[in-house]
């Protein structure tokens, strides 16, 4: 059976080649009347627009960003052009295709799918490290590595547009999150993030804010928000939402967790002026009731601390995050950056 297929393939190949050769021998010239007669643009034009795409010959001074601004109305979408054409940069004379809409939502192909690493930090220190504290030098190295390896840091809104199969994101996308609200976020992480132009999300538990020299103040939280750090919910007291505590009635449990979610959101909105749409579960724990409360109150998604990158088809309320520990070297850090998987389609 295999041989027969092979023979058929060979026959097709030679037949094809024969047609090509005959065509060549016929050596035709180009009658002007046949050329591009239905094109709207003249043949010498530097661009050709057709449904879904635009073909462009790169001109002097063009950049991915300028082309994205011109054709996609968003200079930040240069990555879409780069990813589609499989290039890192452009040079004059290069012929490229600009996709005018997402061409691979969810990063899904029949061979596999994109996954997004969501990094979870807690505390930073000028020098010392422990499990939950990353030194300034390590954090700088990690952010530099993201840049050098071509990763692009995206926001939570972009991530959830990807999860909802609405929009495409860069093929090597990463999300940065930081939990709690320690002052080191303001003093150490922010300058590094600003240097690279990376957005990040700070999940705060509101009881921590304004509690002394180790915690940020609301003024600092607002300043962080003004500098691209999205402030989101991590409850009021950091209680474990997943279980009824000993000696706690079900009604008390419900009232407590509902308050932890809804009031923390209100407090953040009041102090930063920005709405809260995402929650990081304290200790990464949740249950169906918590998810139902989140949905009822307009939350778009929530995060666990289950290690691993997340594909678009993950439950939006049980999104994975990989904790980055203080003792991680760059090799360990890079292991958390998986951007492709195929297990679910095999």
């Amino acid at each position: 059976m295999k041989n027969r297929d092979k023979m058929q393939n060979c026959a097709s190949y030679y037949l094809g080649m024969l047609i090509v050769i005959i065509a060549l021998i016929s050596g035709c010239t180009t009658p002007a009347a046949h050329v591009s007669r239905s094109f709207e643009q003249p043949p010498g034009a530097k661009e050709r627009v057709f449904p879904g795409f635009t073909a462009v010959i790169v001109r002097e001074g063009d950049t991915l960003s300028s082309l994205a601004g011109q054709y996609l109305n968003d200079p930040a979408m240069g990555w879409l052009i780069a990813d589609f054409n499989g290039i890192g940069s452009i040079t004059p004379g290069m012929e490229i295709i600009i996709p005018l809409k997402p061409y691979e939502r969810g990063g899904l192909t029949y061979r596999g799918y994109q996954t997004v690493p969501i990094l979870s930090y807690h505390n930073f220190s000028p020098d010392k490290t422990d499990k939950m504290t990353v030194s300034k030098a390590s954090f700088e190295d990690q952010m530099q590595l993201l840049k050098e390896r071509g990763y692009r840091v995206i926001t939570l809104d972009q991530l959830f547009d990807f999860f909802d199969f609405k929009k495409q994101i860069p093929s090597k996308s990463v999300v940065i999150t930081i939990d709690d609200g320690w002052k080191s976020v303001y003093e150490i992480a922010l300058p590094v993030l600003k240097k690279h132009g990376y957005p990040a999300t700070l999940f705060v538990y509101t009881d921590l804010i304004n509690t002394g020299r180790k915690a940020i103040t609301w003024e600092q939280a607002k300043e962080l928000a003004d500098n691209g750090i999205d402030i989101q919910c991590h409850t009021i007291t950091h209680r474990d939402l997943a279980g009824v505590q000993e000696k706690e009635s079900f009604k008390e449990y419900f009232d407590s967790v509902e308050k932890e979610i809804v009031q923390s959101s209100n407090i953040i909105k009041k102090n930063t002026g920005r709405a809260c749409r995402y929650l990081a579960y304290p200790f990464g724990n949740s249950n169906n009731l918590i998810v139902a409360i989140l949905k009822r109150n307009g939350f778009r998604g929530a995060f666990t601390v289950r290690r691993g990158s997340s594909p678009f088809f993950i439950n939006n309320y049980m999104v994975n995050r990989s904790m980055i520990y203080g003792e991680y070297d760059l090799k360990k850090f890079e292991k958390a950056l998986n951007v492709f998987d195929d297990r679910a389609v095999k």
Partner: protein
Amino acid sequence: MKKLFADMPAMLFLAAFSLILLGTGCATVTTSGLFVKEDDRFNALVSRHAEKAAEYEKNGDLRKALQNWEIVAGLRPDDGKVLNQISYLRSQIQKTASDHYNKGVAYFQNNSTKAALKEFLLALSLNPDHKEALDYIKNRMTGEELIVYEVKKGDTAKGIAQKVFNDPSKDFLIVYFNSLNKDSRLEPGMTIVLPSLKTIQVTPEIAPSDDEPSEYVNVKQEIRKARDYFGGKKYQQSASAAEKILEYDPVNKEAADIKNASYYEMGGMLRNEKKYAEAIAALSNVDPDYKDVRRITESLKSIDKNRSRAAEHYMSGVNYYVNQDLEKAIKEWEITLTLDPNHPNAKKDIENARSFLKKLNKIK
């Protein structure tokens, strides 16, 4: 014709495509063997995407093949063969996606969720606009948190709570999740939603995450430990245990109390041992508003300051003594005693110096 075209392998199609281009008037050949239009600046793109399309098709990636043929068609809009190939691929994609979707539904109904997910993903990979496949993936396969209930004649909130949760006191959940008032009537035929309580468990105060046990600090256990240390007057250990909790949960009042009490007691013990500097250091860890810590610290600082000055006067006295200026030595040591009445040597040294001075005066 369509059938014949459908069965045509990619290479044969490429050849035919080239021939068509020749027929429409071309004279050059790219290195890839694809004929191009003489004065078209986008020839390289046509070749590149036609080749890509053929390659994807050969490897079974129909959607990417279609995408690339669409680009070729955009650049060669008058080419009927390309349009035919696009039309063929679209129908193939629709049929294959539909097959995968139907398989997915069957697996889903048999509770084979892993196999169902695979089929829905394959359907969606072929046809990203397959809304039903997406609905299964994003909603029906994950949304287990709500139970839909149709109100029957005679139903009350308490009755439904009893039926669904086996607990009539959970009727408040019906009110909350359906935005009802306490007095709202439940009309027959009305659809309401209730949360699933299946995954709720009674847990210790803070349950560890299986995936990240290292993050977890069992606050209740640590508090107990801290209290035990404190009861056993092991203040250093009780303070450390409380600090560990506070590092994890900075607003834990109980831990803050134990920490304050521990350092306060340590300060007292060190003061009794006349280790004033150490006592001050211990008390610096206590909340300044805790008990009388502010007053004690001030007093200790004053004592400590006097002790430092006393030590300076004492050494000055020793220098006078060595230089046989006994009167000045005695004077310095008297100041020492005024500043630090408990100075270990000053009193005895004064006595010795006076006695020596007396003997000297007798000799004179």
